[in-house]
């Protein structure tokens, strides 16, 4: 039998702690750990179910959830693996509760099965991927190598939404945003964090609660659709189908096979197949510019552009500021807050003709592909600045930019 030094958990059991923590984080300034901010964001968004399996560097999110869920009337469970963790989110979500898990590379691979099912069955939930380097066990430091897997890792078609936070504040804000996306678009959402931001302590400002927007799924009973008239896969006003919870009396048959709007799976035809899968693809991709968030700075008349996402944003921005201070005033900066759906139209609308596009990524150059496609006729050169295993130092980015621009 295992013995544990229970005194280590004493602070959690004190009267004071039990009193203080029964709801979401009250408004105010905090100095918080990135992983903790993520859980607090989830709680704020209304998440009341967490299932997970320990993995470095995502375990801290799980530990915080284990502590917080029962305090706010939610439930936490440590599952037997990442497969069951992700699959249990499907059950929790259909039982009417916002649900999440967190994992890292190898575990993320195991969750792809559930993601694929959730895409087909339009089941909202959140997976936080605290990215670590791969392939294989890779290492346990920071990485952005799962950005393509997030979008294309699940088998078959359909689409997901993915965001990349870069600060403790964004671990809080983006987690809420991720749940909002999931609920609004009935889709699994992936928060592509990384080890650096998950293990970072920084200031977090929780604004007055009423200032934070929380979106909940639309239920058919709210729209006045009675069970006998309800078609579980018929989009409401052309967007997504309303989603009742199990136990509400709607007798929904959730399926992963291609289906008719009523859930019928045997009257198969290629037309029905096309209609079913293109709808779940288009509901996201056709709204890419509405969903996706891009942030630009110094774009007016810029000749050279630095693009970044996630934690690398911070290195890249520091590099841009320093280079501009040193005279490179034609350097613009673009930051992708959401990675998927790729905001093709939005990016194009923000960017004029360019000489060079620099794209530092904590991988060997992945997101540069959709970016190049998007700006194919806008820039002469696309230069990837890859780095593995740790955050780029600004000096690395500065050196590369200087090398290219000076070399002309």
């Amino acid at each position: 039998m295992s013995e544990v030094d229970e005194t280590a958990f004493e602070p959690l059991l004190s009267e004071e702690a039990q009193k203080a923590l029964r709801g979401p984080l009250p408004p105010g300034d905090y100095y918080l750990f990135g992983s903790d901010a993520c859980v607090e964001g989830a709680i704020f968004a209304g998440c009341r179910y967490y299932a997970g399996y320990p993995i470095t560097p995502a375990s801290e999110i799980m530990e915080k959830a284990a502590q917080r869920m029962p305090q706010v009337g939610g439930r936490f469970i440590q599952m037997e693996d990442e497969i069951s963790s992700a699959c249990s989110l499907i059950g929790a979500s259909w039982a009417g509760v916002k649900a999440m898990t967190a994992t890292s590379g190898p575990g993320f691979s195991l969750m792809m099965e559930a993601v694929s099912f959730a895409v087909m069955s339009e089941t909202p939930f959140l997976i936080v991927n605290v990215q670590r380097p791969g392939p294989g066990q890779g290492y346990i430091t920071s990485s952005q190598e799962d950005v393509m897997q997030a979008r294309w890792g699940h088998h078959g078609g359909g689409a997901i939404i993915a965001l990349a936070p870069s600060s403790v504040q964004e671990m809080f804000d983006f987690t809420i945003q991720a749940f909002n996306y999931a609920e609004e678009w009935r889709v699994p959402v992936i928060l592509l964090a990384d080890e650096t931001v998950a293990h970072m302590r920084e200031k977090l400002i929780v604004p007055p609660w009423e200032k934070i927007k929380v979106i909940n799924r639309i239920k058919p009973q709210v729209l006045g659709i009675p069970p006998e008239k309800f078609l579980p896969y018929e989009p409401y006003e052309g967007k997504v189908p309303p989603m009742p919870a199990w136990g509400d009396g709607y007798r929904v048959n959730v399926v992963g096979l291609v289906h008719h709007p009523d859930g019928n799976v045997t009257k198969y035809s290629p037309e029905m197949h096309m209609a079913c899968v293109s709808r779940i693809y288009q509901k996201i991709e056709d709204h890419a510019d509405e969903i996706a968030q891009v942030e630009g700075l110094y774009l007016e008349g810029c000749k050279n552009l630095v693009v970044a996402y996630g934690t690398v944003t911070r290195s890249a921005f520091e590099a841009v500021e320093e280079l501009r201070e040193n005279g490179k005033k034609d350097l613009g900066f673009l930051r992708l807050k959401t990675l998927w759906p790729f905001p093709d139209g939005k990016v194009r609308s923000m960017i004029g003709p360019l000489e060079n596009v620099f794209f530092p990524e904590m991988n060997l150059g992945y997101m540069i592909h959709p970016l190049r496609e998007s700006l194919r006729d806008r820039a002469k050169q696309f230069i990837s600045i890859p780095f593995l295993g740790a955050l780029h130092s600004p000096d690395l980015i500065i050196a590369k930019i200087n090398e290219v621009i000076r070399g002309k």
Partner: protein
Amino acid sequence: MKRYEIRIAGFGGQGVVTVGKIVGAAAALYDKKNAVQTQSYGPESRGGACKSEVVLSDGEIHYPKVRMADILVALSQPALDIYLKDLKAGGILIIDPLTVIKEVPRADIKVFKVPTAEIALQVGNKKFQNMVALGALASLTGVISPEAFEKAIKDSVPPRTLGQNLEAFKKGNDYVRG
């Protein structure tokens, strides 16, 4: 203060991350500065390489890690070997002479040898070593007020050992001052 960078490195289990945590909390919560603390460690729970970094600034902090440290606390020889080159000229180096045995191969920095483990043993347990180092660091940087440190320590350690932690902190503080 534009940007002040602190790096604490050593073996896992020496409490390196806790030091970073307290420095960051003291600056951010009680001295109203911006502070970003990051950490990295190997796969071992104990005994592997471990480091913690804190960047302080009155303005916004973009790059969250150390570029050139203003102060380096090295509690192991490998930590010194790796990070010495990233210490600014004129920067401060704190080492424990018990574990950092080789001569420090730089003359353009200020070196302070603090027998952290030994002092910690005087307090009662080797595990207070990190608080001794923190005390030395607090005294030498001077960018964060002692009151802020005391409050941050209170937040981060179990109430039962608070007295010993504060004592270790004070001893480290005094050691470099005296």
